[in-house]
């Protein structure tokens, strides 16, 4: 699948790279959906012998392909929320020099990156590669609720129901972009939703 080129943006917006195998004794790869392909692109038998893969398929059928790479450990989780306690546990015994690879949607990478940083992994040891959906994880600045997988601008906050526009301002701590009421100055005047990058 071809990779989406994000348009240039403001400085709080994350930029993603391309995964590359780095020297290290331990490797943790966390991916969702199409992120599996980024792992397959760098997988070698030697690397996989030292790799723990945590994967959330989200309706795709890559799980068996990843399993057949024979990673040292493989976990398939139904959702990110279900996997997060395991991610924390694994990061807790991370040894110096653990390499962390994140691939897939922005929401997955942002949240897993947070866990890795909180576990004290230097950000220089964390690689990211965006694959698949360009949907965003959004925080409503008004009610603070998070809406996952937002594809349109504006969108309706799944918590408080306000119509929000999608900003590029991004918080790493929240792993979310900011959503702000679009019709505050003209209540009821909400433009028809468009794709975020349309």
């Amino acid at each position, binding site marked *: 699948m071809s990779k989406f080129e994000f348009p240039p943006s*403001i*400085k*709080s*917006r994350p930029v993603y790279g391309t995964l590359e195998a780095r020297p290290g004794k331990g490797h943790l790869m966390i991916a969702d959906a199409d992120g599996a392909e980024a792992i397959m692109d760098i997988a070698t038998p030697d690397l996989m012998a030292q790799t723990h893969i945590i994967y959330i398929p989200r309706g795709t059928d890559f799980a068996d392909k990843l399993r057949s790479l024979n990673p040292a450990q493989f976990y398939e989780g139904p959702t990110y929320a279900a996997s997060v306690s395991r991610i924390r546990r694994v990061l807790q015994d991370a040894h110096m020099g653990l390499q962390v690879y994140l691939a897939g949607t922005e929401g997955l990478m942002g949240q897993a990156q947070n866990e890795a940083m909180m576990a004290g992994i230097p950000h220089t040891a964390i690689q990211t590669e965006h694959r698949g959906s360009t949907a965003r994880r959004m*925080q409503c*600045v*008004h009610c*603070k609720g998070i809406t996952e997988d937002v594809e349109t601008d504006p969108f309706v906050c799944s918590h408080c129901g*306000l119509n929000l526009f999608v*900003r*590029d*301002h991004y*918080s*790493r*701590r*929240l792993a979310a972009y*900011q959503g*702000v*009421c679009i019709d*505050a*100055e*003209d*209540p009821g005047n909400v433009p028809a939703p468009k794709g975020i990058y349309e």
Partner: protein
Amino acid sequence: MTIQFNDETFRDDYSFHNSDWAIKRFPFPFHEDSYMYAVNMEQHRGGPEGSVYEKRFDVDEHYISEMRDRAMVLADDPLRCQSLPHMTLAGWDLLELIMVSKSEDYPDLFELHRDGDTWRWINKPLGIDDTFTFLDETTLPYGPMEYITRQTQGDFCVLDQRDGNLWMDAGTVTTQADWSLDFDIGMNFFEWHAPVPLAHEKGIFERALKFLLNIQQGAPARRLNWTMTVNPLLDTSPENYHKWGVQKTTLTPENIGAKQHLRVELQTFFRLPRSNGLVFPIRCYLCSFQDLMTMPKWGRRLHRVVRDLPVELATYKGFIDNRPMMLDYLSQFDDGLPTSPGIFPDFDTEPALQK
């Protein structure tokens, strides 16, 4: 002089008002007839007597009412005051800086008595007399940063300095020009400034950061920033924007002089001794257009600045839709005469309006 504290509100009936004294000392932010972002920083070493620059932490007639408004904002939304776990020491640094400065600069209003680690703090305007143990959080009703910023006008960002950058890791922010501490906490200098137009491209933030990283203890700096606010609303937060945004549409040619306010931030920068952090107080001053127009120089100049401001800035500052109405109003106070350099009103030497 002794300050007569106003009993006033910054919401609902908006009884906020400036005395003649407050108008005269208003920090008008334009030193010339045009405005563009710049690295506009200077040493914060006092200023003309009675000006907002004179003391380290200016106290004025709005003090008590502003603190009441802050308490209401914090009661509604405790997330407006946050401190990441490693920032507690910087909070004590800030408490010390403010208590020492205020007790020295306003001995009739504030007293600090130190006996080893046992400190007694007397805040007469707010009726506070507390004894506590310095560096022992359990002896204060709030964390040190929250305790002291509930008693000090202006917002406070407390920055951690590491990796050649500044990190917004603590703050009390209830009088902000439409940005969210809860969203920005943990960001670095470039990240929290990301939404600002044009300034990144001009290299302003790179130069500004270099300057800030080198600020030394005892040598604070300052700058002015400004925006526009309809009604004297202190809490123009993104959190509540869905409630206050609509007020921007209530301007009419008849009420604009009273309702439209120039909002100026006196921003200062102090190095903190124990934590090596930096504190960034952002003190907000509001003045209605009609009060500003009592100074002929400010009338002439504000018209020219608002008229010539780049669209990007007027949009970012949120008044692009109201700019035409502002200009209709302000143009009545611009007779085309030249203006004297500098921000002060020069009331006695500038000519009266010639139309």
